[in-house]
């Protein structure tokens, strides 16, 4: 697989606040990468650097381009939905299609129109007249009709209801994704994208807390629900974290063999949201 994004010692400060601290990162082609972190952890800063939208320190290479100085070239290969607010309110849907067709060589007008035909979006209406869900569909229709190598989604489904969110990810997988393309996603609804991700990057306070393939995570991280008499034994085997909910205690383990844990109780795979909480607590050495 080819590497498409490499970051070395990537840093970015806003005044005295360091949003990114010496981030090192490689992302390969054909992945769906979830970038997960608390608010203000540096997700958007990382994406903005990759997109050439902000200045940064360190080395960053995206598809062979230096993003900041070659943004216009890079954007031929990258598509980007930041959140629903970014389409200008005054533009008509048909004008937005005309514009993207005008600036993107690889734009497939028929594809965009076909996609929109499957929705209730009216072409002659302005963005400000559409519902939030419709705006996302317009944006998605535009983006998916561009033959881009990387798609960056920064909280793409913010403010959408669950039906639109499901539809969004479904369309993304059906109509856009293939092994030549790469998708980077940040979202707070981690659980909804968990099953489509192939790689996750956890960011905490501007640093990468964990970068791993989903397979590695399922191999290394496990949840143990010990039987009542084994709770102390579980606690003694240095779990990464402990959670109590409705009288049940569960532990998250990193790098302990499954066979060993099964002696103490039920073992299941860890959800990304539990893993996220574990990593953000900072009481582990991952």
């Amino acid at each position, binding site marked *: 697989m080819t590497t498409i994004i490499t970051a070395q010692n990537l840093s970015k400060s806003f005044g005295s606040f360091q949003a990114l601290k010496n981030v090192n990162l490689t992302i390969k082609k054909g992945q769906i990468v979830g970038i997960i972190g608390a608010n203000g952890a540096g997700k958007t800063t990382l994406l*903005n650097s990759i*997109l050439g*939208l*902000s*200045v940064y320190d360190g080395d960053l290479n995206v598809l062979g381009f230096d993003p*900041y100085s070659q*943004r*216009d*070239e*890079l*954007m*031929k290969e*990258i*598509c*980007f*939905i*930041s959140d629903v*607010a*970014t*389409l*200008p*309110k*005054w*533009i*008509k849907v048909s*004008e937005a299609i*005309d*514009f*993207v*067709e*005008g*600036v*993107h*060589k690889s*734009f497939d007008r028929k594809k965009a129109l076909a996609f929109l035909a499957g929705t209730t979006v009216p072409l002659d209406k302005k963005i400000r007249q559409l519902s939030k869900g419709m705006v996302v569909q317009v*944006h998605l229709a535009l983006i998916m009709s561009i033959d881009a190598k990387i798609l960056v989604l920064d909280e793409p489904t913010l403010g959408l209801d669950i039906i639109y969110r499901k539809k969004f990810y479904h369309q993304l997988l059906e109509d856009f994704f293939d092994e030549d393309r790469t998708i980077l996603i940040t979202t707070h609804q981690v659980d909804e994208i968990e099953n489509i991700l192939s790689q996750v990057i956890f960011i905490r306070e501007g640093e990468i807390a964990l970068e791993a393939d989903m397979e590695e995570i399922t191999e290394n991280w496990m949840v143990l629900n010990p039987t009542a008499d084994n709770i102390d034994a579980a606690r003694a085997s240095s779990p990464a974290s402990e959670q109590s909910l409705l009288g049940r205690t569960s532990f998250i383990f990193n790098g302990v063999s499954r066979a060993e844990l099964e002696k103490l109780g039920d073992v299941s795979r860890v959800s990304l949201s539990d893993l996220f909480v574990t990593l953000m607590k900072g009481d582990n050495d991952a």
Partner: protein
Amino acid sequence: MIASIIKPGGYNPFKALMLREYWENRRAIFTTPLVIMGLSMVLIIISMGLLGRAIHIDGQSYTLNEMIANMSAQKAQNISTHINQILMVSTLPIMIGAWFCMVFTALGSLYDERKDNSILFWKSMPVSDLQTVLAKLLNVMLVIPFVAIGFTFIFQIFLLIVGSFSTLGTDYSAWDLLWSSSNLPLLVFSELTYMVMYSLWALPVFAWFMLVSVIAKRSPLLLATIPVALVILFETLFFHSEYLARFIGMRLTGAHILQTDNGFGQNFSILGINTPLENIQSAAKPEFWIGLGIAAALLYAAILLRKRSSL
């Protein structure tokens, strides 16, 4: 007709950027001059038809027939000068409207996209900041005034037609009196060259507006004017000079183009119709090129700052 001109034809980034300007600023480009022209036409018809046919020229009141009689009594050369002056002055409402549209479009050019967050959408497109700023500049300095001149042309034709109607039933010939004495093609050509020269002379001021529009957190108008006003005040109080005020005033009024070698005020008349050549000759003044240099520096700064701004 317009719809066919402004239809995009596939991949053409700069055209797409110009179309974006048209879509975003339809009101400034098209609606405003159209409405002003329409209102002026209605006013003329009302004032001619209902309000006693009185026309005020140079503080005197004439009925139309009196005016025609008055004019016919004059020499052909005088008639021609008068008609052309009237036609020239008739463009003022539309052109003043267009001027305000230019100012406010320039002030909003790089501000509105930040205010509504759409800058992230525009920046996700493969067009450089240079191209974007240039498209916005061309829209403000050429598209808006040129469309306005188109409307003034329609309005001038309207005036000649209305004038022709009022000669009906009199002994005077509309052709001799109005159509052959006005030199409409030359007039329009003169207006066009004047407009291009105006845009170039005023470029540093408009470039300043665009630079402010990329910096302003709120109200670009205030940020564009108040600091400048303070500097002017400072200059007046402490140096007893008024270079900055003069610089801005001369450029915004287009005085450099109308002004002959005699200096400001002496041979300056808003009614003096320059020939296209006289308009272009103002480029021979060194201040013209100094202004362009300042404009280039301000625009370069605007491009750099747009590159940095992501929200």
